[in-house]
């Protein structure tokens, strides 16, 4: 929902970033306000996933220029865990398996890290189990998943639901969903989208990174951005996604190149 007077959650200005010495982000600009849903689309290699990892603070990516201001604070010098407890959440494209750590313990440690960062005491184990039970319903997950190792042996859809469960528990101000819809069948997609929709409030914001317009039938974006060559080259409403779906990317890239020449 667009409200021009709501708080600016994320402000990215002229962001440049390298991986292994190669520049991937080349002057990216983006502003996200509370209550908004943004979709970022683009071809493979346009820098979408790099952008999400840079926001979360992945150590392999080196920011060479620009600012990332999250709720009035420049977060580029923060450690990944500090960004997380400040309210930035990245749902991974490929969630990691962690053998030997139960999902329940992982979620509790993560939840308590957030409480500690807010100066609150750790949650009582029984209270936490009650909270988890309630949040499980957001993604229609069976409680038996809690006692398995994190993502180990989970199907693709189960891993993505587990990401949204973490989002439901940690209640971030900014959630970046990196291709959360890729590889999901339609039932799993509906469950994931329905879960995300339940978590959207006027005080938080969501950035969806996706290849496919289909997701945007279920989570309706306020803005659709097209990324190419490490920056956002055009921005429109949800109808832009439909146009990309029917016409592909070539026309928009051609327009962009023509503009650059002019």
């Amino acid at each position, binding site marked *: 929902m667009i409200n021009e007077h709501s708080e600016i959650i994320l402000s990215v200005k002229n962001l440049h970033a390298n991986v292994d010495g190669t520049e991937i982000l080349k002057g990216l600009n983006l502003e996200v306000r509370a209550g908004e849903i943004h979709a970022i689309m683009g071809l493979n290699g346009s820098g979408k996933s790099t952008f999400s990892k840079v926001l*979360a*603070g*992945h*150590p392999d990516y080196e920011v060479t220029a620009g600012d990332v201001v999250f709720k009035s604070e420049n977060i580029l010098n923060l*450690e*990944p*865990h500090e*960004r*997380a*407890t400040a309210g930035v*959440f*990245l749902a*991974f494209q490929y*969630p*990691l398996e*962690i*053998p*030997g*750590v139960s999902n329940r313990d*992982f979620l509790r*440690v*993560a939840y308590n*890290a*957030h409480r500690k*960062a807010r100066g609150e005491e750790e949650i009582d184990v029984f209270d936490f189990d009650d909270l988890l039970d309630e949040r499980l319903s957001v993604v229609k997950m069976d409680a038996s998943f809690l006692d398995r*190792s994190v993502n180990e042996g989970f199907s693709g859809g189960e891993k993505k639901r587990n990401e949204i469960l*973490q989002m439901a528990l*940690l209640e971030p101000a900014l959630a970046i969903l990196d291709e959360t819809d890729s590889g999901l069948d339609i039932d799993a997609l509906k469950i994931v989208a329905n879960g995300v929709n339940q978590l959207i409030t006027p005080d938080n914001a969501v950035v969806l990174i996706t290849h496919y317009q289909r997701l945007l039938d279920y989570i309706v974006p306020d803005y659709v951005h097209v990324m190419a060559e490490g920056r956002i080259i055009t921005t429109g409403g949800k109808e832009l996604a439909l146009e990309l779906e029917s016409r592909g990317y070539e026309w928009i890239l051609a327009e962009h190149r023509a503009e650059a020449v002019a």
Partner: protein
Amino acid sequence: MANSSDLNAILAMPTTASLTEQRDAYLKTLIATAKAAVPTDLALADLRTRAAALLKEETFPSTRQEDWRFTDLSALLSVNFAAAEASTVAESAIDPLRLPETTGAQIVVVNGVFNAELSQLEQLPEGATVGSLRQLSQNADLMTKLQTRLGQASGSHEVFTALNTVGFQDAVVIYLPRNGVIDTPVQILYIHQGQDTLAQPRCLVVAETSSALTLVEDFWSTGDEVRLTNAVTEIWLEANAQFTHSRIQREGAGTYHIGKTVITQARDSQYIGTAVDFGAKLARHNWETYQTGEQTTTKLYGLGAITNAQHADTHSLVALIHPYGTVEQQHKSIVDGKAHSVFNGRVVVAQKAQQTSASQLNRNLLLSDKARVDTKPQLEIVADDVKCAHGATVSQLQADEIFYLQSRGIRAAQAQRLLIYAFAMEMLERIPLESLRSTLAERITQWT
């Protein structure tokens, strides 16, 4: 025992031939030390004479022998060990080590000798015999039965096993009659105290047909005094016997710990063992199982967690010579600092051992650039109708796993501890005693 001028003369000799002489001489000295410690009421002349004869063929191990290639004992050659003497320990030092689940079934062995005052054995069922070989040696019937077992397992000629046989001062005996079940897990606490001392704990378990037992062996010492613990445990499982075993080695930082666990399994018997190596300066565990009948189950789980200049070596052997056997082995090591971990796991499946299932996995977690791992999984399979899997991995903590945890608000240091903990718990979870499991887990939690 060599006097110090002899020893200095020996140490001055540089050639290969003289190094062999030096090792021969050192072994002779150790044998003499061990022999001199034998109490008169536990002469066991036949057994010990035979072991001494076997030792005449042996020399003190060097890294030129394949079995000792990665484990160098030459630092021992400059230590003049004296036999450790029977002694006692303050009750207050023992109390924290007593596992609540084993109340009434606790045996305390100090310097290789059963300590009656510290042991508590009131929870044992009728018919089961648990105690000190020296005290039981008056029971002629029992001794007759034991003599067909004591020192009779395969591999008894191995140098340290024979050295123990020549000189053990006492032994813990656990004898379970047919269908005998000890519901209370039994704990044996082996304590070694002294400086430049040799202690040789010995344990003999005989489980008759369809009996069942859970045993914890806990090797414990403190301080960084130089000591040599040379332990041997022989386990005999008769038909359909079930045995669950936890072997914990948490000796002091100056201790050289050499241990042998040998299990002989009759048909339909089951052995589930978990061995944990946290302590000692240098530890070597020879873990061997031999099969005398079909359809045995053997599960070996090992965890080493070492740092600084510690060295931990596990040599295991599972020999299947009958059909329908099952072997499952997992061995994990956490190696930090300048520590060195060695794993050599042999699984032998002979031609007759058809319809067997064998799996072996060795995983190593390297936490420092200076840590070292040598691993050698060895499957020798002759039979053709066999299900078999094996593998070995050496890895560091995965940066992507750490980042994933960090992205959920968990600090990097805590993320690392969580991953190390998870790696270790897969093995510690096999230990059936909750109190022991959590004590050992606590140690992993504090890993930094």
